[in-house]
């Protein structure tokens, strides 16, 4: 659809935020907070991290000055969009004592309408995976489904790779081909600062039609294509091929014990992974015992309670917990949902306090096989 492509000038980008807000969306986009780029509510392009880049490594993250005016010159924000679509803590329902029984009181909060702006390829892939988790099968999560259905997605393609990125080897990026409403590539060429925009849905096309825009030139298309190639070529890390089969055959690898010496079972990897979806239910009462409520909270397979069944926990060693996480993510996830659970964003590497690198661990297991 050639008419779905256009160029939006930087000075007209505010119109996109305004139109989305007018349609009842809360724009959520990358912004700088506490020395990091996070997804947070924004009111317009002035809230975006202008000229900010990021430096990442195992257990290391710092913001950098890029020396230009790019608004999306960073890589992925600290936490994925699961914090918005699948909140860390959700009240599911409450109950009141009634006679000898109790009465359920349902939560009636309307689902928010988010416009996510600046979504990366890995993020979008993660969202499509969580769609399978929460909406596939007979027991769909209504809350997730509603938040997801309500959202508007503005994808921004990456112009470079972060040091922890490995989406190319997971085939989840850096190019984006489906699942978005609008796709932007940010292009700065001398004094010209524009966004090559492409609609990916009817909603996206309708929005693009209302924005001040010019026709895209061959040079713009080439610039966007060059950026995507640079983002793929610049990836220093890669997941080994055939990792699903490898791990399934290496459940007794001696390497699990080696990882366990370094792994603290702190659960950070699972918290920042954009596809990790495990949760626990918490039932609480008020002091009088007349009211109760059920809350769903993010949980981690690194906790002892996670694998608790009557009589004790199943996974008591650090080795068994790390193996559970890595083999589920990279191997039996494929059997369960038809895709790998890893989108190659590298967040688990960056936010591991001791910098454990899932790509390096996979290589070490291969070496010891």
């Amino acid at each position, binding site marked *: 659809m050639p008419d779905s492509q256009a160029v939006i000038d930087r000075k007209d980008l505010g119109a996109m935020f305004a139109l989305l807000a007018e349609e009842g969306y809360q724009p959520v986009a990358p912004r700088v907070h506490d*020395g990091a780029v996070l997804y947070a509510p924004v009111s317009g392009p002035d809230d975006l991290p202008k000229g900010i880049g990021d430096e990442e490594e195992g257990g290391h993250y710092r913001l950098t000055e890029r020396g230009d005016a790019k608004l999306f010159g960073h890589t992925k924000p600290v936490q994925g969009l699961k914090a918005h679509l699948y909140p860390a803590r959700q009240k599911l329902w409450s109950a009141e004592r009634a006679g000898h029984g109790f009465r359920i009181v349902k939560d009636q909060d309307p689902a928010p309408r988010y416009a996510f702006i600046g979504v990366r390829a890995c993020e979008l892939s993660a969202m499509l995976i969580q769609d399978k988790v929460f909406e596939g099968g007979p027991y769909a999560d209504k809350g997730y489904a509603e938040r997801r259905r309500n959202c508007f997605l503005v994808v921004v393609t990456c112009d470079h790779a972060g040091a922890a990125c490995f989406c190319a080897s997971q085939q989840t990026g850096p190019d984006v081909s489906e699942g978005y409403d609008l796709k932007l590539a940010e292009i700065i060429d001398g004094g010209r600062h524009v966004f090559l925009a492409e609609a990916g849905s009817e909603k996206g096309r309708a929005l693009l039609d209302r924005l001040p825009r010019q026709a895209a030139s061959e040079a713009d298309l080439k610039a966007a294509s060059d950026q995507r190639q640079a983002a793929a070529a610049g990836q220093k890390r890669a997941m080994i091929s055939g990792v699903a089969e490898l791990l399934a055959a290496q459940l007794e690898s001696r390497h699990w014990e080696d990882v366990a010496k370094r792994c*603290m079972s*702190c659960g950070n990897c699972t918290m920042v992974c954009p596809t990790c979806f495990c949760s626990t239910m918490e039932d*609480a009462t008020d002091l009088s015992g007349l009211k109760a409520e059920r809350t769903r909270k993010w949980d981690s397979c690194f906790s002892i309670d996670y694998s608790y069944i009557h009589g004790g926990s199943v996974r008591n060693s650090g080795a068994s917990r790390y193996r559970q996480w890595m083999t589920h993510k990279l191997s039996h996830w494929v059997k369960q949902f038809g895709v790998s659970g890893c989108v190659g964003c590298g967040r688990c590497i960056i936010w591991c306090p001791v910098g454990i690198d899932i790509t390096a661990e996979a290589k070490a297991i291969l070496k010891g096989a």
Partner: protein
Amino acid sequence: MTTRAKPRLGVFKFSSCDGCQLSLLDCELELLAVTDAVEIAYFLEATRKDMKGPFDVVLVEGSITTPHEAELIRQIRKSTKALITIGACATSGGIQALRNFTDVNGFLDIVYARPDYIETLETATPIAEHVAVDFELRGCPINKHQLLEVLNAFLNKRKPNIPHYAECIECKQRGTVCVMVAKGIACLGPVTQAGCGGLCPATHRGCFGCFGPMETPNTGALADRFLGELKQDKGTVQRAFRSFNANAPAFREESLKHD
């Protein structure tokens, strides 16, 4: 609705600063709900009323540091159905357990004009080393929401929702940017039990370990990171593990490696 007899609550203190029992008074509005639900039979910070046992539930603050305390805790245990220890002192020995790493008589000579008046034990030890404890609530001080949760669970005969995983989980759920990864600040969060809600990292400080070791603490891996990437010296690493929960086994063993 059936009315139930109000359980009798006692709050006792051993060697400690009183901060944890004051958390109960800090409950403010919820305190009225507590007094509706229990009869406060003994709680010197709140009332001069000194009712004798037996109690249904007793909260114990502080560690055992004198022969008198070692005897008193046995009497209290006999007088109550449930005994809940609150705070770092009661659950690990507290800051005063620093004496466990040295000769206590050295302190006596420095601190007291007449050390011969002082009767003390060589060590400061948690309550659970002396009597059976039904539940240990961590923290220096404890978190009032967790205290209410434990009382609430006891009153309603359910399991308290008190996680034993790492503080990191609370930071991430709260949306705090990791101070160790993004700022290079040494943080005990990965080896410390959750419970405070992620207070220090949310104010740009590393976790001090107030809630003691988490369920599966790999302190060695964290100490290696402090010594390596964060370029700390051994003394700094030792002091990190040797504070309010210095006598908790995992922290004690790690600190001894950095002499």
